[in-house]
């Protein structure tokens, strides 16, 4: 046995498990970045008391209830309101004036997790007087996260950070205008939600479902390998109208992929792009 045999064996077990999950539950994690998947599989093994990953695979195949819990380990649900405030400022300054010219506006937040980004965008649109004629599609593969996102309720100890971000993002009022507090948490105004559709949609296996004017997909592509990143960006290109906007996470970029020429930088430092004619 060589030194690296245990690592190779673990990688092999990961591939087998992801294949099993795909065949059994149709969730496709096979093209996710391996480096962070390894860590999360180790955590899942510890959490479910499995000594080997193949033990976890066995249990996942035979216990559908366990898969629902394990889904939390296949994906990362970390988010923040107005995360990277300058990104939201760029949306306000560069995307909003164009969106304003459409009689009705469709926006897609892909990989919306527990909803922080969705509620942020809804507030931004409300302050710009555009929410009434907007429709926001908020999609994710994690049903538990979508449920939380839809509830619009967040822990009180996170609100100070949310407020700081909101102001840094160019917020026009006070974040507290948009929520009511109680029970150790805050709940965002239902009225913001009337224009939001929360839906299960996978960038790995599903197709385009609507034409949209803006896609925001932040810190989702980092979990994909290059092939799957290309698939996802292809969906965004197909969904976007001519000159539509695409916003990515602050360390994600299109420069490496085959779709690089189909978009032009709009605010490059904030990873805001626009679709150009092919």
């Amino acid at each position, binding site marked *: 046995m060589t*030194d*690296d045999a*245990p*690592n190779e064996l*673990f*990688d092999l077990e990961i591939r087998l498990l992801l294949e099993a999950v795909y065949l059994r539950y149709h969730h496709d994690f096979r093209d996710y*970045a*391996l*480096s*962070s998947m*390894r*860590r*999360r599989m180790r955590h899942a093994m510890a959490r479910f008391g499995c000594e080997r990953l193949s033990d976890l695979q066995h249990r996942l195949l035979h216990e559908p209830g366990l898969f629902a819990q394990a889904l939390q380990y296949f994906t*990362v649900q*970390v988010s923040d309101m107005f995360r990277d405030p300058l990104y939201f400022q760029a949306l306000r300054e560069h995307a909003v004036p164009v969106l304003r010219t459409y009689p009705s506006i469709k926006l897609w937040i892909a990989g919306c997790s527990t909803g922080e980004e969705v509620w942020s965008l809804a507030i931004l649109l409300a302050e710009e007087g555009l929410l009434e004629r907007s429709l926001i599609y908020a999609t994710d593969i994690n049903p538990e996260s979508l449920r939380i996102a839809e509830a619009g309720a967040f822990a009180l100890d996170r609100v100070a950070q949310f407020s700081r971000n909101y102001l840094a993002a160019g917020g026009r009022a006070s974040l507290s205008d948009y929520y009511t507090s109680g029970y150790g948490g805050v709940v965002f105004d239902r009225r913001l939600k009337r224009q939001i559709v929360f839906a299960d949609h996978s960038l790995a296996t599903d197709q385009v479902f609507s034409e949209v004017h803006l896609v925001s997909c932040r*810190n989702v*592509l*980092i*979990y994909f*390998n*290059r092939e799957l*990143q290309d698939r996802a960006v292809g969906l965004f290109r197909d969904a976007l109208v001519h000159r539509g906007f695409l916003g990515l*996470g*602050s*360390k*994600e*970029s299109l420069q*490496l992929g085959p779709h690089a020429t189909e978009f032009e930088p709009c605010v490059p430092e904030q990873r805001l792009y626009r679709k150009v004619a092919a």
Partner: protein
Amino acid sequence: MDLRREIDAVVMGASAGGVHALQAVLSSLSADFAPPVLVVLHLPSGRPSRLPELFAPHCARPVCEAYDKQPLEPGTVVFAPPDYHLLVEDRGHLALSVDEPVLYSRPAVDFLFDSAAAAFTHRLLAILLTGASADGSEGIAAVRRAGGVAWVQDPSDAASELMPSSALALAGADEVLTLNKICERLAAY
């Protein structure tokens, strides 16, 4: 150990006192230092780091901040960006993640070391420097389990001893070295 023949990548981790220590270490790299050098320095979150600007003047090799799926270039010094974990995806690429912080830190040394150990196994050199955090201990353990080489700064020589001493307690090291010695060894490349 013959760095030139035995090592394909170098990873470094530091926290409190790390700017000074890393300036010394990075300035000891010669212009023909071939392995990529990947660095996690704990940072305050929520603002741009300017680490490349800070370190480039002291370093004979190019210095940059990582972006997602960045190809690994020989002899390039790559820093983890603030608010992201830096990982080695495979022997040719990096990856980033926004997983929860480790011991309040994102980037975390453990993420980098652990993923680099999986990719480079025994061809990896990990260097853990000063810091007031126990982050990096699990990483050093992973590097050693995979057969890689771990140098840990002598806690009595470190500005902040917790990071090196925690790693030594958990995982030991191949060598415990002063900052000067670490620089000398790298300079001899």
